[in-house]
């Protein structure tokens, strides 16, 4: 019966493509799981209390940790976010609201090009802008480098998210006699909030693991530093230094550092999303 044959064929095709889509999704998730599992296997052994509380000890001396690197990374990322996020969001608002202007097209093009500039080059720019001017390495210089890297990502994702806000919402606000700037700040940005936060978190996660822009800006530091004006340790830098060293103990610590870095990034992005999105109403979707 040709009818029965056709039905069987359709069913087989259905199984095949469902299976294909399913297994390819497993590949995507699998990559992340594999990285994480490998980090845990190699790094978890070197994690202990002092890893989070002590700076590195001299070579040959057992123990010590990367506490100064964790603090340094957080400080650099905080500085980067303070500069990068507002500039990026403001530029995104400009592009979304005045996107047809000639200058806007130039800004959009520049942002896309900046997004593709190698991070080592961004590091050189921060070196030239801040380090040479101040005549010393600093956490601030590292923050500026990472901020430059965050800006294009935040700008473009903010623009995309704002353009997703329906025109009807803008008209509703303007129709109430709410001024344009108020509409943008209190209504459009609020409506696009979750998307913008996702964009910011993507940018944050991306620069959090950057090493190249920090090499000659934050520079790294074997000791505690709490000043944004001084050279400071950073997790990626520390991992880099330790990984290329000839010492087994340092290798183990580098793995542990990588694990901590990944957890730090995942933890921060999740926490920020949770904090900012919690206040969204239950019924609103």
């Amino acid at each position, binding site marked *: 019966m040709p009818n029965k044959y056709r039905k069987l064929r359709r069913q087989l095709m259905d199984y095949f493509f469902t299976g294909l889509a399913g297994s390819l999704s497993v590949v995507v998730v699998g990559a992340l799981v594999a990285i994480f599992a490998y980090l845990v296997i190699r790094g978890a052994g070197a994690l202990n209390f002092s890893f989070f509380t002590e700076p590195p000890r001299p070579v040959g001396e057992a123990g010590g940790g990367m506490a100064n690197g964790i603090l340094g990374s957080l400080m650099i990322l905080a500085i980067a976010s303070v500069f990068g996020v507002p500039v990026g969001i403001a530029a995104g608002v400009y592009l979304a609201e005045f996107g*047809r202007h000639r200058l806007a097209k130039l800004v959009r093009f520049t942002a896309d090009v900046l997004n593709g500039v190698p991070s080592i080059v961004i590091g050189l720019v921060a070196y030239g802008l801040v380090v040479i001017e101040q005549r010393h390495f600093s956490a601030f210089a590292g923050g500026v480098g990472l901020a430059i890297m965050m800006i294009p990502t935040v700008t473009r994702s903010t623009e995309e998210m704002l353009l997703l806000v329906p025109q009807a*919402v803008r*008209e509703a606000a303007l129709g*109430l006699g709410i001024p344009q700037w108020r509409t943008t700040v209190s209504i459009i940005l609020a409506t696009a909030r979750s998307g913008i936060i996702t964009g910011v978190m993507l940018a944050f996660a991306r620069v959090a693991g950057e090493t190249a822009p920090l090499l000659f800006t934050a520079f790294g530091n074997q000791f505690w530093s709490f000043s944004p004006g001084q050279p400071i340790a950073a997790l990626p830098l520390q991992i880099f230094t330790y990984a290329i060293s000839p010492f087994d103990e340092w290798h183990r610590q580098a793995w542990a550092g990588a694990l901590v870095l990944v957890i730090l990034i995942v933890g921060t992005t999740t926490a920020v999303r949770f904090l900012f999105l919690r206040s969204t109403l239950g019924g609103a979707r």
Partner: protein
Amino acid sequence: MSTAVEVRNLKAWFGPTEALHGIDMSIASTHATAVIGPSGCGKSTFIRCLNRMHETNPEARAEGEVKIGGMDIYGVPAVDVRRRVGMVFQKANPFPTMSIYDNVAAGLKLNGMRDRRVLDEVVEHSLQQAALWEEVKDVLKKKSGASLSGGQQQRLCIARSLAVDPEVLLMDEPASALDPISTAKIEDLIFELKQKLTIVIVTHNMQQASRVAEFTGFFLMGSLVEFDRTEKIFTNPSDKRTEDYITGRFG
């Protein structure tokens, strides 16, 4: 009967295309005026000129004289005009991230009103005017505006417009996306509201026009063909084109 909106030689453009060719119309105060006509005849463009929403489209501009309560609307900031001339759109457009309360309070809050007592009062009064209070009073701050049904959302949008206490309410096909029951509620509402304010309603539904409006204007290809008392338009129109339209010969 006094005039709420006085329109003289109003022209509107989209880019190089002239969409309205010099409209003259005197809209009676505290009555409902319907604007009818086939798609693309300029009726939405016309009412969007009355609160200067037309020009929010970057390619659009308008020219002519529109006086509302003696105020020349093209001579004052658009924001001032829109506070006195509210608008309800075809598709209900509550602010999706705001609660029901915040939706209604938005117009006042975002224009600087902070007094909670005043806000509470205005929200309750506006929702009552829009016949929505009983249905939402227990979930004012718990539920978002977007979680209501389509008909409720449209009444929420009406309440939101009423909260800033406009003199004129423009309604751009406010019931065309709603079921018959919700439509009937909106029509009842128009009856109530026109005791206190002036309503201009664009509609595709001629029965609706005859039910709610004392006056009706018939638009065709950017011109106002005929403007008269509603019963005159629907029973004894002066212009052949009006007659053809209302008898269903085109459009």
